[in-house]
């Protein structure tokens, strides 16, 4: 029996959440006033949790490193948010959303958690509309939906390409209401540097005021970590520059198990890297694959000529192009899931067919769609024998209507007109499914320490479906955590205020200060970015889209060596007292240098291919699926949960076996 107890409620799947809510202990309103909760991170999960907890009557302190809670990186989510509303009457239901999510996650998530997510998804939409979130509407005044990520129903609610922004501003508005009531104290430009445990329970944090450099103690009866994912371990990702793993990692070092760190989602349609100066990658909405055709040149000489600028893509005839997704996956073509599309692009570029100067880009071509739409439009507008120029004009207008803002963004960044020449795209790290292990109540292995949103591992298994990240963040924050945390806090009503002048706080503060001193006192050879880029290169090459035993073992050694070098030779100008962004980055990179190693170690032990994790050793050997990812349900149908034991290499693996009572495990096939 594993030491991990997921605390999944008894009863049939569909009744578990209701039963659980009916049985858990509540805290009476008068007592809530005496209970403090710290929420770290103010994105969709943290912002919604903070607002709801404050609304219930708890005293909430929020922390974010940005200058305002509204700037958390949830804001950058484009596509939409799933909810099983079935407004379109196309057969959607909580069960179907549950089923799609588990299947999409390649059967590596917990049934009970996912079903709860699907159940509460409908509340999210009601809640957001009531808050004044301006979702897209139809002419009749009702909410519009679109289908997303190759699912069979239209269940995605959206606000143009800025759904994340609108939802986050909604959560932030709920926070504003509580800030005005005095129930939330917002500590902006603050970074959590450690978790403080008292008698084994999470009782506070040590935070640094990023403006003054002061180290502060904050106590609470429970700590919620909603600090997002760790995609920036790759240096280049679609995450914000400041996105980091520090809060989760500090909790991990204090005893919270870290789950499935190797599950990374690599998004296929990002704007390629243009050079060494690149600081981050920009995502182009997945919806582009509905109309764009992905290709590289058939002949390697043509690819070389394109790279050196001697040949233009538009000069290549149809027969000289390799539409490799359509070739390999005739059934799904360009619409294969994210992980499959990403790996296929990498395979072609590794084979030398890449089309930009770095050799890491493929074309996403709208010429065919422009022709098709142009002809359709001419027909429906009653234009007989339209000239080629007219068809082009009409077709471009249709494309502009659908993707205008994306095309404009592409042109701003790349300086090429995507209506005239194919777009270039390449996969980039986008989301991390792994995170702190949590039980059904979203509590980590540290009592009183909770994790919500992307920071926990719970709902997406080995691969996340499009438009589900926003759903999970808000579900956790608005509708799950506020209930489950009460169960824990009900035993704390007589505790009283947690003092911060205790030995535990002294010790934690000292450790934080020592660490800062050590960073500031290093020999001063290279900048923090120098190390971050090196780490990113190791991660991308050896723990990226496809992984193998040799590479992963090398990665573990390389990262360990790089970490030692970092601590000896990093250079941080300025001082620790006062604003010092280099020091902030150094602290984050130091943690990435530990997480990266655990990441590789996790990928090494998971010898199967599943979802975003592809092991070159585990592929189908023959039959129609030959060469595709091979999952191993006999040996790997578990959640890995790592316990901190000093160094990442000493981390101890615990396994939570996944039980599937309601779903039959199948092989994903897109042929």
């Amino acid at each position, binding site marked *: 029996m594993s030491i991990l107890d997921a605390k999944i409620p008894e009863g049939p799947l569909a009744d578990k959440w209701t039963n659980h809510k009916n049985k858990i202990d509540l805290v009476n309103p008068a007592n809530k006033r005496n209970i403090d909760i710290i929420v770290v991170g103010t994105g969709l999960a943290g912002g919604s949790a903070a607002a709801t907890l404050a609304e219930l009557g708890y005293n909430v302190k929020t922390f974010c490193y940005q200058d305002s809670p509204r700037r958390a990186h949830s804001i950058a989510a484009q596509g939409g948010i799933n909810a099983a509303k079935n407004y379109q009457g196309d057969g959607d239901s909580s069960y179907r959303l549950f089923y799609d999510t588990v299947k999409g996650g390649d059967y590596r998530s917990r049934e009970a958690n996912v079903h709860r997510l699907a159940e509460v998804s409908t509340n999210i939409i009601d809640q957001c509309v009531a808050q004044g979130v301006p979702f897209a509407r139809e002419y009749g005044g009702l909410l519009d939906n679109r289908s997303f990520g190759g699912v069979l129903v239209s269940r995605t609610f959206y606000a143009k390409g800025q759904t994340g922004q609108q939802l986050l501003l909604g959560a932030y508005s709920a926070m504003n209401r509580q800030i005005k009531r005095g129930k939330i104290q917002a500590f902006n430009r603050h970074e959590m540097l450690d978790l403080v445990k008292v008698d084994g329970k999470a009782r506070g944090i040590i935070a640094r005021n990023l403006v003054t450099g002061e180290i502060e103690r904050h106590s609470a009866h429970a700590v919620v970590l909603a600090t997002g994912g760790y995609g920036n371990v790759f240096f280049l990702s679609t995450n914000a520059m400041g996105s980091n793993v520090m809060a989760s990692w500090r909790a991990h070092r204090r005893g919270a198990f870290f789950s499935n760190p190797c599950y990374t989602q690599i998004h296929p349609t990002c704007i390629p890297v243009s050079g060494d100066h690149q*600081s981050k990658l920009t995502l182009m909405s997945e919806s582009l694959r509905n109309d764009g055709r992905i290709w590289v040149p058939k002949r390697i000489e043509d690819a070389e000529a394109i790279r050196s600028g001697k040949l233009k893509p538009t000069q290549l005839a149809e027969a000289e192009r390799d539409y490799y997704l359509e070739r390999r996956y005739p059934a799904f073509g360009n619409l294969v899931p994210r992980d499959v599309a990403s790996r296929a692009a990498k395979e072609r570029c590794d084979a030398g067919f890449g089309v930009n100067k770095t050799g890491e880009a493929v074309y996403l071509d709208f010429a065919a769609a422009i022709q098709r739409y142009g002809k359709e439009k001419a027909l429906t507008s009653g234009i007989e024998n339209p000239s080629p120029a007219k068809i082009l004009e009409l077709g471009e207008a249709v494309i502009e209507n659908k993707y205008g803002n994306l095309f404009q963004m592409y042109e701003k960044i790349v300086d090429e007109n995507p209506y005239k020449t194919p777009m270039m795209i390449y996969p980039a790290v986008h989301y991390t499914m792994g995170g702190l292990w949590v039980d059904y109540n979203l509590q980590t292995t540290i009592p009183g320490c909770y994790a919500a949103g992307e920071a926990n591992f719970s709902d997406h298994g080995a691969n996340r479906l499009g438009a589900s990240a926003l759903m999970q963040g808000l579900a956790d924050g608005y509708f799950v955590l506020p209930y489950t945390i009460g169960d824990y806090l009900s035993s704390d009503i007589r505790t009283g205020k947690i003092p911060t002048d205790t030995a535990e706080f002294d010790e934690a503060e000292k450790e934080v200060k020592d660490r800062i001193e050590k960073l500031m006192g290093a020999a001063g050879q290279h900048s923090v970015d120098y190390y971050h880029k090196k780490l990113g290169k190791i991660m991308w090459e050896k723990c990226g889209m496809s992984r193998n035993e040799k590479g992963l073992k090398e990665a573990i050694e390389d990262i360990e060596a790089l970490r030692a070098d970092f601590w000896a030779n990093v250079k941080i100008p300025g001082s620790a007292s006062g604003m010092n962004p280099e020091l902030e980055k150094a602290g984050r990179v130091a943690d990435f240098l530990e997480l990266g190693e655990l990441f590789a170690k996790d990928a090494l032990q998971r010898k199967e291919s599943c979802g975003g994790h592809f092991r070159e050793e585990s592929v189908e050997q023959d039959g129609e699926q030959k060469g595709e990812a091979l999952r191993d349900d006999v040996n790997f149908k578990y959640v890995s949960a790592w316990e901190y034991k000093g160094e990442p290499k000493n981390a101890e693996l615990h396994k939570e076996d996944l039980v599937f009572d309601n779903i039959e495990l199948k092989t994903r096939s897109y042929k």
Partner: protein
Amino acid sequence: MNLTLKIWRQQDATATGKIVDYRVTGIEGDMSFLEMLDVLNEQLIHKGEEPVVFDHDCREGICGMCSLQINGEPHGPDRGVTTCQLHMRKFKDGDTIYIEPFRAKAFPVVKDLMVDRSAFDRIQHAGGYVSVNTSGNTIDANAIPINKDDADDAFAAATCIGCGACVAACKNASAMLFTSAKVSQYALLPQGQVEATDRVLAMVNQMDEEGFGNCTNTGACEIECPKGISLENIARMNREYLKASAKG
């Protein structure tokens, strides 16, 4: 390309700052403006000097963290973009570029090019919300149909990223475009009607208390807004305010 940068350096909120000249070399057109500053900062770190501090985060034009007054314009010479999406191909080899913080009494400098925009947050605290509990017991999302044009206009107003370019561009450092975008979003939706009177009075009152200047309709804010927030919102807020004042 090689550039001369004239950058505002200021140790902290209380120190006096000054413009300092820097040279950067090897800048490529594909770099974003912030990546160009990354290059400068690498140079400075290498020399053991303190890098230039500036706000930035998502670097894809949506978080509203980046700012910078570049050659006298917020977010630089390009239109419809934030500084993180301004590319160096908009500049020429040998150019001299002034880089200053967004200036307003209500936006005190934190350090170098970083300013404190918490005044915006306080305006939002004053009334930027609908008072509805997150109980999950609200009415069905489709219970109240909303005219598509109103929903679209509300969305357009709600796309404000709160970067402060409107204040920085305005010769009076007025925050009317920011405040009106929020007031408009709720004014256009039925959910916002219930508290409309209190909201606009409270938000405008807070805006005035923060020390922003008055709007004189120069229109600079609309032109410099990276999200194209329309002046119509200001007119709408004026109307809402007059209506609310009449009600008392």
